[in-house]
């Protein structure tokens, strides 16, 4: 080691030590393979998936168990019960797309309800969520294994797209979408990367909450940002448990418009439900395998 090396190391250490924190996970801006909208040639390349999201939003709770479609897809008698936590998440969105040409989507919804049942106890972690859209259609997802290490994922039904889309091409999904949602809102603390101080307050249901806030610059068009997209996320968390009670994501698409998505956990309690709630009969397998998450290697299903 000579003097020059030492000095270069000092310079590099200065740069490395003062590096900023990463922005929150930006991946939810990437639309899954589900085809969003057709892209007429006259449209700009940019799609404001002003909406994209919605998937997850929300659905029907206990009613689900009375739903004949669910029961008919389950094998055998539903005599056994399992202990779960049951959460209800209400989802709503407003959008103000300023694009000249709007495209119809197959979703046409701005609100939904999601029920999430998560098995508790020593059994293999298991979660089911069901989104119910205003037209009565549903989208179900069952996750086996943990959130970060799912061993299998099954889906049934079609996730929907939101009502307003601009542009064409389809490469953007607004953040709070839900297509990739594998957990309930309360347990979803992984996206809390507050960039400012917390403060006390109330959520939209008047519940006491600790408010966290984060902003991020995101983009979706490739190696260089060509259309600026800003995210502004506010979490209302339970002051004692830290659970997320409500999340509001405001996404501003430069020159196009703004989308505001609100997800509110309206109910959360322990319950006993028929064990066929986790039956995967009639579901499509979308993932099987032990997805180890490491920094150097990840198995591909």
């Amino acid at each position, binding site marked *: 080691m000579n003097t020059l090396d030492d000095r270069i190391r000092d310079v590099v250490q200065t740069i490395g030590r003062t590096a900023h924190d990463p922005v929150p996970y930006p991946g939810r801006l990437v639309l899954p393979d589900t085809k969003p909208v057709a892209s007429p040639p006259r449209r700009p390349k940019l799609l404001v998936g002003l909406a994209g999201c919605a998937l997850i939003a929300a659905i029907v709770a206990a009613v689900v168990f009375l739903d004949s479609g669910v029961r008919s897809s389950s094998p055998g008698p539903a005599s056994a019960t399992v202990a779960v936590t049951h959460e209800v998440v209400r989802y709503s969105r407003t959008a103000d797309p300023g694009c000249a040409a709007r495209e119809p989507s197959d979703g046409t919804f701005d609100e939904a309800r999601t029920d999430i049942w998560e098995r508790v106890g020593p059994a293999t972690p298991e979660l089911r969520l069901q989104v119910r859209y205003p037209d009565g259609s549903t989208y179900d997802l069952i996750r086996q294994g943990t959130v970060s290490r799912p061993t299998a994922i099954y889906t049934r039904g079609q996730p929907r797209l939101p009502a307003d889309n601009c542009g064409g091409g389809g490469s953007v999904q607004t953040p709070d979408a839900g297509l990739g949602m594998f957990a309930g809102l309360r347990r979803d603390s992984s996206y809390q990367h507050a960039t400012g101080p917390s403060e006390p307050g109330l959520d939209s249901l008047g519940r006491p909450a600790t408010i966290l806030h984060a902003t991020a610059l995101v983009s979706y068009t490739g*190696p260089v940002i060509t259309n600026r997209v800003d995210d502004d996320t506010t979490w209302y968390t339970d002051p004692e448990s830290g659970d997320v009670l409500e999340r509001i994501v405001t996404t501003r698409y430069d020159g196009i418009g703004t989308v505001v998505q609100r997800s509110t956990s309206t109910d959360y309690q322990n319950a006993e439900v028929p064990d066929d709630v986790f039956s995967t009969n009639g579901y499509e397998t979308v993932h099987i395998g032990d997805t180890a998450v490491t920094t150097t290697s990840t198995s591909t299903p």
Partner: protein
Amino acid sequence: MSERTDDAIYRAVAPELVRFASGIVGQADAPDVVADAFVGLLGTELWTRTDNHRALLYRRVLLDAKTWLRAADRRRARERRAAIREPASDFPDLEPHVADAVRRLSPQQRAVVFLTYWDDLTPAVIADLLDVSEGTVRKQLNRARVELRKVLA
């Protein structure tokens, strides 16, 4: 691959990638370069088939950083011509003459210097990580040291 898995990979690797990118484009733009690189890879066949996401991300960040620097150079030139303001420093914590020396390095030279002196990686490991030859790494490192010697020696 699930979004949760992608999320976990991002959270695991993003901090070191941001440090790496800071050594190339400066601290202010580094988080955006990394996020952009990540988004650019998600869903691609390359991403789903690779068994080394970390290396893939390093290469993509370097690639995006080069593009970013070109755009930044053009922006600074415009600002200087218009005398709008003195462009913000990309390396605010370095002495100005040292920051200038770093700026004179190519993006690849900056990358090699950072990986050598921050991560203590050998030329062979850096070559593997960035998918270039070991000779290229050694050459870039030597040229960078010559440039930095002018202000640090």
